């Protein structure tokens, strides 16, 4: 019996080791980060924020802006996106911890697409592309960033729709 138990614990340890390994591989894969750090993820953030749009990476707004976004979730850019208190706390803390720096400021506006950083990164995108029915809105990251849902905005994964 002792022998079987040892096997059992070895197996549990291997599972834990492999899971940890897969997670760090997934984080290392993201080569997009403009601040050269791995993309932060959180299961609750992913599930809740991606229900209506891509879960925008926390680094794309400064902490102050995320706090403002989270304080009026019941009036979230024209929709009620309210969360229960535990979910709001967890997501708020995650956004705060992984928020971007001052170049992601948008002078009081809360849209990522209105930050200086976003405008600079997208300054070569023509009006024709922005107005295309396949893009529709600059908030529609996945229209061009093929891996956006996985948090990868690398230039290698851009395909502008025609």
């Amino acid at each position, binding site marked *: *019996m002792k022998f*079987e138990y040892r096997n*059992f614990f070895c*197996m549990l340890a291997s599972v834990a080791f492999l899971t940890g390994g897969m997670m760090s591989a997934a984080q290392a894969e993201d080569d997009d980060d403009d601040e050269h750090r791995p993309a932060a993820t959180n299961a609750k953030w992913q599930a809740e924020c991606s229900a209506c*749009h891509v879960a925008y990476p926390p680094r794309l707004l400064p902490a102050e802006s995320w706090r403002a976004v989270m304080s009026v979730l*019941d009036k979230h850019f024209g*929709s*009620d996106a*309210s969360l229960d208190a535990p979910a709001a706390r967890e997501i708020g803390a995650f956004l705060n911890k992984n928020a971007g720096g001052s170049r992601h400021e948008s002078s009081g506006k809360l849209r990522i697409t209105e930050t200086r950083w976003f405008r600079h990164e997208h300054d070569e995108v023509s009006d024709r592309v922005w107005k295309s029915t396949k893009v529709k*809105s600059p908030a529609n990251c996945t229209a061009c960033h093929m891996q956006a849902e996985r948090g990868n905005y690398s230039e290698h994964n851009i395909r502008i729709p025609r």
Partner: protein
Amino acid sequence: MFRKVVVPVLVLVAGFLSQPALAETPGEVLATIKNDAQAADPSFQGFSAANGEKFFKQKHGNEWSCSSCHTENPATSGKHARTGKIIQPLAPAVNAERFTSPGKAAKWFKRNCNDVLDRVCTPREKGDVLAYLLTIKK
């Protein structure tokens, strides 16, 4: 011994962990809404799928109706009216995940009723809509 006992136990435990917490059936979710409807109105007789369909497809003073995002045929995929994100079918006959989590159903009724009506929905309105959705076949 290891394969015969431990592996099935691990498989069982993994299966248990992957189940959503407090899963219910759409019928059970409807029964809870029915209790709320009876509590709110002692003369309540039952839900009406026909009223639910009308409610679902009508606008209620705002820009959107339920069908603006979920389409007039909830057996098909919809699209978020603002972001364009694909919304999986709402009819439980087509999408088995729908109305199996009371918490999730409550969260979305609150949000979507606020968007469509600027208020929470009454238990009767919610029950009528769910009764309608349950009449939709594949």
